[in-house]
């Protein structure tokens, strides 16, 4: 789609070259998700060091959240500051269900996702009928409420000190007890999430989302129920965040409120914005950069946060539309690339 054509010379469809056919085949959602998964496996296999593999696990978890957020921000044009809350709800729901109520993991997964999606529905239903950034405000409030519940509902959540002993996931009789196994598991799930997102983007729903972003009134004059569609995408993005929370809980096996604060919500929004909102690959790039960058900055000791901030500002000044699509002479930088 990106090839420049000479104006006035429409290209004939039948005569597509082999290379172009190949290109088109690589562009299908299934192919893209598989390639990314393959690349992740390769990187995990090369790295092996548990510490770095741990970072790759977190990258996968973050990517699951930000791909949903990218659909919401970049395509539907809505900002949510509650993704960390949904992430936390997913994590706490599965943590509480499996430890306090002895529910098997296979059941706590759908339960925690449905629960979180239900909360998102209740928050989104009234706010998404309105035009403008009411969702950002409502989710900001939700984030605080959820955080307070995590801290104060001590019998269930253990309060500020949290609770542990969350069981590991067993898959086909194999316990996911090492970082490497878990990394592969998380990235398989992320690849699936990405596949779903890419399918949505390339469908009538994706077009409708883009149309809402540009011209909400025009979209509705073409028959798009804009309020309902925005709500669906918001609930979907909350579901993805919840899934990420589930993966977090069964990886760390210990939960405390600190990991699910407003700061994390803002960081997630920043990841999508830095990468570029016009395209879901922007979210992938932004998330990768902002997850991996702090690790490199440890070298600067106490000054890391200063340099981190400096880099963010520089990117936003030089490239306000995000990192996606930047031409790097050496080759394009992709996740794990």
């Amino acid at each position, binding site marked *: *789609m990106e090839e420049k*054509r000479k*104006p*006035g010379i*429409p*290209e004939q469809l039948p005569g597509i070259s082999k290379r172009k056919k190949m290109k088109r085949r690589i562009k299908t*959602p*299934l192919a893209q998700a598989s390639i990314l998964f393959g690349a992740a496996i390769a990187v995990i296999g090369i790295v092996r060091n548990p510490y770095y593999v741990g970072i790759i696990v977190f990258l996968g978890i973050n990517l699951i959240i930000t791909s949903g957020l990218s659909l919401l921000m970049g395509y539907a044009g809505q900002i949510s500051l509650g993704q960390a809350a949904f992430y936390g709800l997913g994590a706490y729901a599965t943590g509480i269900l499996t430890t306090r109520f002895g529910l098997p993991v296979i059941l706590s997964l759908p339960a925690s996702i449905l629960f979180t999606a239900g909360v998102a529905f209740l928050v989104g239903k009234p706010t998404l009928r309105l035009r403008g950034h009411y969702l950002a405000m409502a989710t900001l409030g939700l984030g605080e409420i959820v955080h307070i519940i995590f801290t104060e509902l001590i019998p269930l959540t253990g309060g500020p000190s949290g609770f542990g002993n969350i069981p590991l996931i067993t898959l086909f009789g194999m316990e996911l007890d090492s970082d490497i196994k878990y990394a592969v598991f998380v990235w398989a799930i992320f690849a699936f999430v990405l596949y*779903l*997102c890419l*399918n*949505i983007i*390339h*469908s*009538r*729903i*994706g*077009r*409708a989302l*883009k*149309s809402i*972003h*540009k*011209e909400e*009134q*025009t979209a*509705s*004059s*073409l*028959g*798009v*129920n*804009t309020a309902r*569609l925005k709500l*669906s*995408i918001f609930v*979907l993005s909350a579901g993805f965040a919840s899934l990420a929370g589930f993966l977090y809980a069964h990886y760390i096996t210990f939960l405390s409120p600190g990991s699910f604060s407003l700061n994390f919500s803002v960081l997630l929004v920043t990841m999508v914005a830095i990468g570029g909102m*016009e395209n879901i690959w922007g979210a992938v790039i932004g998330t990768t950069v902002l997850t991996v960058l702090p690790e490199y900055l440890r070298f600067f000791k106490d000054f890391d946060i200063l340099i981190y901030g400096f880099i963010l500002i520089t990117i936003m000044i030089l490239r306000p539309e995000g990192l996606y699509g930047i031409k790097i002479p050496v080759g394009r930088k992709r996740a794990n690339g």
Partner: protein
Amino acid sequence: MAENVNIPVLRLGDLSKSFGGLKAISSLSLEVAPGSISAIIGPNGAGKTTVFNLISGLEKTDGGSIHFRDTRIDVMRSWEIPPLGIARTFQNLRLFSNMTVLENVMMGRYVRSRASLLGCALNLRGPRREERDIREKALQWLDFMGITGLSDRKIREIPFEKQRLVEITRALAGEPALLLLDEPAAGLNITETRNLIDTIYRIRNLGITILVIEHDMDLIMEISERISVLNFGRKIAEGGPAEVRSNRDVIAVYLGKEFA
């Protein structure tokens, strides 16, 4: 398209609309016969576009009723109206600049498709087949309008006249029974306007009823079978082109009282 010839496609009954203290439309009644090309004309600020916004549900009426065939539509929400078979264009082109020409036209087919979010996400067979159909139909309509060559272009890359045509194509892609054209000739030169007239005839020949708002009097007088003239939100005249042209009130409004 089987339709009862006696029932008007569109019926406005005693319609009124105010913005603050300004009466944009007052007790306007109007009927559009099936298969016709009808027009609403009037000077700037006469309330023409407001009529379209009321029909397409983008503005809510203050009083009166709007019927599409037998269905009362002024009580509906804007997104419920297009599926009934009403499509419109906008005076100041509202194409989606973040999409290609083809995607814009495919967007016009949203009303004729139904794949759910889940179905699309999982890329199920039904949605996949539907998507192919959407693309095919969109290409057919682009072909009908003679702009297939522009399919893969971004909106910003094509000239204004073509953008107009793309917007009409987008409206047609939903295969409406009634097409509302809001000043389709604005900004077009003489040849382009001639082509537009041909296109409008070809659309009508498909059995689509057309209601057009226009400033370009030559265009209106040539294509319309029935013309309603608005001034300050009121209908001051109605009839065939010859009738309207000789109407004293109309001449007064357009040329000044001394000519009437």
